[in-house]
């Protein structure tokens, strides 16, 4: 492993100043992706900036009006261990329990999952479905972007020089709202999604008012399948509507063939998983 230096800043400002002008600096949260990548020489790194001692990156707080603030370095076990999260965002608690295994969840964070920007990131389709926003900090101050805009290519995102993800903000769930993420893996744990589907529904008076669908592992980035969600708006939840959304998801997918699956198989899974996730979300509303 190449040599790197280590810094553990205590504030966002200190972190930004450490990152600024150091293109070889990397933010460390759980390290479950970063350290593997440095060790296997997939990423170079001269300075590891440990974000875990920065209060804002460790924040986990829920406000019934404003929603959830999820610090970028909050490890998965804190997310599914949090009563408010489990009650207001059961799908988020569940996805936190999908990332890696128990020991990985002791370290890995949802923020890290997003910043790693893998197309297969399990948390990201759900974050998109939940309508989450990213709060970034950088030398030029802060900015907020929608999660679906964050990833730009495999392993790449729109974080600029000196910029870091501070936290995610997830809107408070409206009445009749439910979300669900399903992925397909050959094993039952410790695996990378062959495909994944994160969905959300807001059902009012028996009609879908709003829906969002996002997909994992079927595009260069976690994919916001806008058309699949829009196909559901105004429809009655049920097999017909879900089938249409599933087909829209299949059409939106542009996967590749690799060791995890073929193009055809992944497109097929998109439809299956989207339908199953919608069914699960609809069950949750009722």
């Amino acid at each position, binding site marked *: *492993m*190449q*040599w*790197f*230096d*280590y810094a*553990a800043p205590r504030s966002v400002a200190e972190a930004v100043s450490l990152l600024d002008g150091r293109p070889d600096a990397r933010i*460390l949260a*759980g*390290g*479950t992706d970063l*350290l*593997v990548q*440095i*060790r*296997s020489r997939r990423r170079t790194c001269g300075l*590891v900036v*440990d974000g*875990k001692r920065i209060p804002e990156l460790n924040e986990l707080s829920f406000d019934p009006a404003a929603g959830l603030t999820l610090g970028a370095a909050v*490890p998965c*076990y804190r997310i599914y261990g949090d009563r408010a999260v489990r009650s207001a965002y059961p799908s988020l608690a569940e996805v936190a329990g999908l990332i*890696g*295994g*128990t*020991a*990985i969840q*002791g*370290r890995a964070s949802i923020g890290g999952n997003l910043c790693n920007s893998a197309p297969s990131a399990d948390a990201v389709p759900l974050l998109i479905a939940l309508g989450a926003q990213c709060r970034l900090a950088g030398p030029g101050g802060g900015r907020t972007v929608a999660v679906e805009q964050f990833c730009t290519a495999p392993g790449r995102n729109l974080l600029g020089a000196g910029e870091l993800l501070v936290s995610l903000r997830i809107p408070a769930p409206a009445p009749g709202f439910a979300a669900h993420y399903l992925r397909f893996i050959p094993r*039952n*744990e*410790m695996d990378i999604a062959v495909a994944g589907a994160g969905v959300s529904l807001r059902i009012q008076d028996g009609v879908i008012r709003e829906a969002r669908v996002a997909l994992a592992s079927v595009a260069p980035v976690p994919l916001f399948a806008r058309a699949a969600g829009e196909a559901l708006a105004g429809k009655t939840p049920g097999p017909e509507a879900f089938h249409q959304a599933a087909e829209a998801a299949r059409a939106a997918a542009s996967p590749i063939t690799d060791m995890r699956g073929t193009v055809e198989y992944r497109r097929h899974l998109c439809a299956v998983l989207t339908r199953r996730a919608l069914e699960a979300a609809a069950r949750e509303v009722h």
Partner: protein
Amino acid sequence: MQSKVHVRTAINGEPAEFLCEPRQSLLECLRDLCNLTGTKEGCNDGNCGACTVEMDGRIVTSCLVLGVEAEGAQIGTVEGLARGTELHPLQKAFLENAALQCGICTPGFLVAAKALLEQEPEPSEARIRLWLANNLCRCTGYDKIIRAVQQAAREMKEARP
């Protein structure tokens, strides 16, 4: 300038310190700097669980923790399970159930299972399997490991006042 870092931590309840390179993992620091070789390396990327240790009350794969991150932390390893000459109920159950063959994964399983039973004294078989899915064993097919954890859970329950 490349310089090592002085880390003060606590391992198995005892204060400990070591001087490490920032790139050294907690696993390397435990094994090579603290002579605690009970924690094993199987994959060095978090997928086998042989290096599982407890860190501030949570289990982590120590290959994916930097030694420098242990500053101020409480670390628990397999060497800390037994109390003097008295084995931990899990250690006894692993032996009585023949839950190890080659034994290389055993430290990781023991540390992980201990954390589970401390958190959930009566886990179901499915829960044990889920919790331990981060730990690979290639010898046993897991059957006897699961049974050992179940036995230890029963015995720990009976031993409680």
